[in-house]
């Protein structure tokens, strides 16, 4: 049977990808960021997952205002790298896992989560920056990736509670997949940041650290945070943190926090990162 081993949460700041792609990762500014992922890269390499289910948001790359799915699950064999205006990032193509992806789609839809099935989707920095942070710059990604793309641009995004419950439904789907697969779930985005308007540059380390403190042991207190509070306290783009709750919902109630990292800033954003292992 497929088994969900662990969850990884991380910010997905585009400038991190640019720093890596342009050979700037050795600069002190970026070393401060990449340093927080040294343990994580070793940890993931040792864990050797077959599949990563990667929760992220598209930034007007694959989807525009023409079609705005709240939850879109990538069921394709491969996902091309999006051209976000400077040409596609020079990273390996992303290989999907259609068998597991379709199984998850069917299972969660019958569990009353009406997600959108996507067979053609370019993936942008929201998906590739977490892969780069966790894997470095390999010739090929060392596992298959199932993208789960969440709308957090058009208000309202799904609630934290809905995300958490979707995570639980995804877990049920993984547990019922009849082939031995080692699975890890990534929840990406955040932490506090605001990219728009006169309040741009907003960072709330106190909010972020409280969120990190409660994520492993007390997620029930996080899933009811209303959108208003995210926007006011974590910045208009800090609302991306609802995506972390999908990963949390999929994990066991009891988890072991094996790594934590937090730094300000990467470009405009507070970078937060956790690794949680299932204990069963």
């Amino acid at each position, binding site marked *: 049977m497929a088994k969900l081993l662990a969850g990884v949460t991380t910010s997905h700041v585009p*400038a991190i990808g640019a720093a890596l792609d342009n050979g700037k990762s050795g600069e002190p500014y970026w070393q401060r960021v990449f340093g927080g992922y040294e343990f994580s890269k070793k940890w993931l390499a040792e864990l050797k997952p077959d599949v990563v289910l990667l929760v992220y948001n598209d930034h007007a790359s694959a989807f525009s205002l023409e079609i705005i799915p709240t939850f879109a699950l990538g069921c394709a064999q491969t996902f091309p790298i999006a051209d976000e205006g400077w040409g596609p990032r020079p990273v390996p193509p992303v290989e999907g896992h259609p068998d597991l992806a379709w199984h998850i789609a069917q299972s969660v839809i019958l569990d009353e989560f009406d997600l959108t099935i996507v067979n053609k989707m370019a993936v942008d920095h929201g998906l590739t920056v977490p892969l780069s942070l966790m894997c470095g710059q390999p010739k090929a990604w060392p596992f298959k990736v199932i993208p789960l793309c969440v709308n957090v*641009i058009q208000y309202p995004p799904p609630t934290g509670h809905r995300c958490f419950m979707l995570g639980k439904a995804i877990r049920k789907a993984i547990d019922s997949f009849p082939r031995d697969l080692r699975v890890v779930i990534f929840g990406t985005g955040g932490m506090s940041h605001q990219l728009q308007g006169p309040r741009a540059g907003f*960072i709330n380390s106190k909010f972020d650290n409280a969120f990190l403190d409660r994520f492993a042991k007390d997620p029930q207190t996080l899933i009811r945070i209303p959108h208003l509070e995210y926007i006011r306290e974590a910045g208009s783009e800090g609302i991306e943190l609802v995506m972390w709750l999908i990963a949390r919902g999929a994990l066991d109630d009891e988890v072991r926090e094996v790594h934590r990292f937090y730094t300000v800033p990467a470009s405009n954003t507070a970078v937060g990162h956790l690794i949680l292992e299932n204990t069963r």
Partner: protein
Amino acid sequence: MAEEAYEDIPGTQVFDARRSRKGYWLNMFCMSLMKDENRKAFKANEEKYLDEHFPLVSVEQREAILKRQWNRMLELGGNIYYTSKLGATDGLSFQNLAALMTGSTQEQYAAMMLAGGRSPDGNRSKAEWKNRG
């Protein structure tokens, strides 16, 4: 309709249904700049490109685009993930745009971020911005 509580957050345009509808063509114009051929055509003659391909962009939005009034675009229904594509066409990063939208120099803005960013204190409600004088 009663005003949404998030309208009280200063310096912030929450991209809700109203703004999305208002900004549809402005944002879709920005989306068109994902293609290199469109970026070239726009740069060659900005007014012609807008008139030919995006006649439904409003007069105010057109002016804000041509004058690169980044905050004005947001007020007129623009969304930062879309307007940033116009920024990219001009060679501007998210951080470059943030400096412009906050009325800072690049150096000032980068220094503020390195020092921990814009504090939540004094930046939670419009009343706080009014009182700061």
